[in-house]
């Protein structure tokens, strides 16, 4: 019984982090939301008894994805509205 309640809490946290990461306009905060999604998703794989998938998700999701996205943000820009404005000017 307690495990079912914990699974429901985990699912709500996963959805909250994913929606936050999609909606927010600041791209650095969206990257951190992606990190939380990856952590909770790894716990889900672990509870569904697939430890190899959880291992891969942990190694890729928390280290590699964050580093690549941060380097991308450094090379472009952090604010999302700025990108949209530039594209509108181009049109």
């Amino acid at each position, binding site marked *: 019984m307690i495990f079912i309640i914990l699974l429901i*809490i985990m699912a709500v*946290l996963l959805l*909250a*982090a994913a929606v936050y990461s999609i909606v927010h306009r600041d791209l650095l905060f969206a990257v*951190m939301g992606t990190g939380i999604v990856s952590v*909770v998703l790894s716990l889900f794989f672990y509870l569904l008894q697939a430890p190899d998938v959880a291992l891969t998700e942990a190694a890729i999701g*928390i280290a590699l994805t964050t580093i690549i996205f941060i380097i991308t943000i450094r090379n472009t820009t952090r604010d999302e509205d700025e990108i949209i404005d530039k594209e509108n000017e181009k049109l």
Partner: protein
Amino acid sequence: MTIILTIVFTLMAIGLILSMFRFVKGPRSGDRAMALDTFSIIITAAMVLLAHVFERYIYVDVALIYAVLGFVGVIVIARYIEGAL
């Protein structure tokens, strides 16, 4: 013995909800990065405890990967905030 495990898992779930609250609310980027750090360390402890519940030795490896790699993302975010990356 089971009642202690139930209490500890409930406390961990409340801790996850509280740090998620700080992640959504936190005014600066430092608050959010710290909430991510607390999140990942609570989940590392929960994974080792679940390995005890399921009685499988292979499950400890996932927590080992988290303990080794979990701080890399936070350090990269901190270097980006400082402007020295």
